């Protein structure tokens, strides 16, 4: 390094030099006092520029961007890179920490992340705990095991044995109806069976989610969000409402192959204990 250029000084600040190059710069600094002030230009701009355009990082991701990604058509469908990129749990935890205090606007962000979770078949336990922590003891509906959120107890029973549209009802401390209702059953492109379900915990509190049979025959929960429970008026079912249920619909749209199963077909599958599932 005969002459220490500005570019080299900048690279020094940006930690882009090899260790021998760094040593040369440091040696030159001792003999040439101007180097330090020339370098200051770059270290100052580094500080000045950090965080300048961070505003989008502190806001929920706009729906239109998520929609574009989730509904955009791929040019070819034979490209199936399977490098196994998964969002790591820490990232999800950090993201949730960042968004959850925002209260009202958090839903959009939750939407973004749960789509991630669903898309990779990974549901952050944070999200699960967040929504299900009201169920305790034998009212536990889920467990987190080996990186999967699995249905437990009544939820498992309901998904295993209850026909779509029927409710598994229980009450445990008040007269309020508490129930779990599989809403419908569908297949995924990989031929596993999935069911959308609704859970009512109180008149205006409930959850909606999607669970799929995994290879071990358990129901793995792929999405689970707060949603106002569906109301039944006469024979008509008013669909569940709220941002959570909209999102669950999106999730289903994303996972489903073909149409939802008809009652007959579903009955047979339940009778056969979900054999034929992957």
């Amino acid at each position: 390094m005969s002459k220490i250029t500005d570019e080299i000084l900048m690279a020094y600040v940006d930690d882009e030099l090899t260790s021998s190059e760094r040593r040369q710069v440091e040696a030159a600094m001792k003999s040439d006092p101007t180097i330090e002030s020339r370098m200051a230009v770059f270290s100052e701009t580094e500080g000045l520029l950090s965080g300048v355009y961070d505003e989008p990082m502190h806001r929920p991701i706009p729906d239109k961007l998520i929609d574009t990604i989730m509904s955009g058509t791929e040019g070819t469908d034979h490209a199936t890179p399977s490098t196994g990129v998964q969002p790591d749990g820490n990232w999800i935890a950090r993201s949730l920490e960042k968004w959850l205090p925002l209260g009202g606007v958090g839903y959009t962000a939750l939407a973004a992340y749960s789509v991630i979770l669903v898309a990779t078949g990974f549901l952050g336990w944070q999200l699960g705990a967040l929504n299900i922590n009201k169920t305790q003891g034998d009212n536990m509906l889920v467990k987190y095991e080996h990186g999967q959120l699995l249905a437990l107890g009544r939820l498992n029973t309901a998904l295993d044995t209850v026909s779509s549209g029927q409710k598994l009802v229980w009450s445990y401390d008040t007269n309020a109806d508490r129930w779990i209702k599989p809403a419908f059953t569908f297949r995924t492109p990989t031929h596993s069976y999935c069911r959308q379900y609704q859970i009512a915990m109180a008149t205006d509190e409930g959850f909606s989610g999607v669970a799929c049979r995994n290879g071990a025959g358990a129901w793995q929960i792929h999405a689970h969000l707060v949603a106002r429970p569906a109301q039944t008026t006469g024979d008509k079912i008013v669909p569940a409402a709220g941002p959570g249920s909209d999102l669950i619909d999106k999730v289903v749209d994303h996972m489903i192959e073909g149409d939802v199963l008809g009652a007959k077909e579903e009955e047979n599958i339940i009778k056969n204990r979900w054999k034929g599932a992957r």
Partner: protein
Amino acid sequence: MNDNIRAEMIKLLPRLQRFGYALTGSMDQGNDLVQETCARALDRIEQWQPGTRLDSWMFRIAHNLWRDTCRAKKVRGEVVDITDMYELSDVDGRDVVENRQTLSVVMEGIEGLPEDQKVLIALVCIDGLSYKETAKIVDVPIGTVMSRLARARKALRDLVDPEFDIRPALKFEK
């Protein structure tokens, strides 16, 4: 349908949005650019090599789209009201004023940079990518990245006077 890629894209959105914001100077325009970028990326997903970095590939798409836009109609960033954008209310009052001024000076400074320098500021200084990765994204030799980036940073540094309160008019010579 590839779930992993879509998930990775969603994960990249905040960084892409920041990049779009830096390039266009406006969050709305930045988000439009990101939206276009995602649509194009999905459309051309077969061009992405599994095992290579998806972020770099998408940054490149965004950059190319933006360059095309600029070439087509010499877009200038919208005027952004800095006071609306940053709520700095619970910071010490004096800091707020100074921060706002510095921030606005820096942002205006970046907006005034030539596009080929602005993108380097966005990738290296704001996103923190390496020179090498940046060179691949903008498709110029690493030496060019370094000389342009050094020039851009010197220009920005010149703008931000240590007192940063007596420079209402900001002009770039070039």
